[in-house]
């Protein structure tokens, strides 16, 4: 049932994306690494739905998470973003780009001394709010948001 829905979602983008879904997504073995890539959450177009799927809830307290990103990004294709938390029981940090076609951007899971810190470069299609969410070992969520102004969008050709 899910697969049908996914094909439908991808197919609705462009008719010929059906082939892409079959070739690249649906048939990829997910057992290459220990934990499966959370495909369903990455395919949600609604931020709250994606957040609920990846973090178990769509409500978070503010604070305890730091999100470093530029106020103005000249190139939306390469926006440096750093997330961190001052809590010592963080199991994951998740980054959302609110108005990208798919809001769930990335999710980092820490174990065996991995610290709640992740820095990368992301794509933003236009000016939007980005949000970092920290999840603790007791399932609590903390979040922080930041508006990033994009001069040139990151998703065009």
């Amino acid at each position, binding site marked *: 049932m899910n697969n049908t829905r996914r094909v439908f979602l991808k197919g609705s983008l462009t008719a010929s994306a059906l082939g892409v879904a079959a070739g690249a997504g649906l048939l990829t073995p997910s057992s290459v690494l220990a934990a499966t*890539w959370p495909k369903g959450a990455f395919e949600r177009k609604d931020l709250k739905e994606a957040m609920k799927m990846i973090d178990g809830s769509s409500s978070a307290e503010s604070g305890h998470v730091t999100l470093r990103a530029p106020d103005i990004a000249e190139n939306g294709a390469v926006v440096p973003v750093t997330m961190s938390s001052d809590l010592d029981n963080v199991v994951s940090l998740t980054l959302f780009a609110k108005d990208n076609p798919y809001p769930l951007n990335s*999710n980092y899971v820490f174990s065996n001394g991995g610290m709640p810190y992740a820095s990368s470069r992301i794509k933003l299609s236009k000016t939007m709010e980005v949000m970092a969410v920290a999840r603790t070992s007791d399932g609590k969520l903390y979040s922080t948001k930041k508006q990033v102004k994009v001069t040139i969008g990151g998703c065009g050709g």
Partner: protein
Amino acid sequence: MPSNTIRIRAQVKGGTTDVKSLIKHPMETGLRKNKAGKPIPAHFIEQVTAELNGKQVMLANWSIGISKNPFLSFKVMGGKVGDTLKLSWVDNKGESDSIETKLS
């Protein structure tokens, strides 16, 4: 273990291991079209894992929203000079690569 796609540096600083890496990858979204108007298929890294002395310390779940030729930095508590850090990635086409480096 050499790698054609990963460059990595892992340094111990005051009890914390600081890892910086660069991965060569197109990170194609699947939402773009080529000059002929045909969609360019999605091609992106789905997961990156890091192991310190064989134990997983970080797992990254990525998407088409990560920039081309991704940069990734993370930190691990502990770690000694000479310890082994392994970084691996796998993409949506099942392609993968990994690298091992000694902490310095």
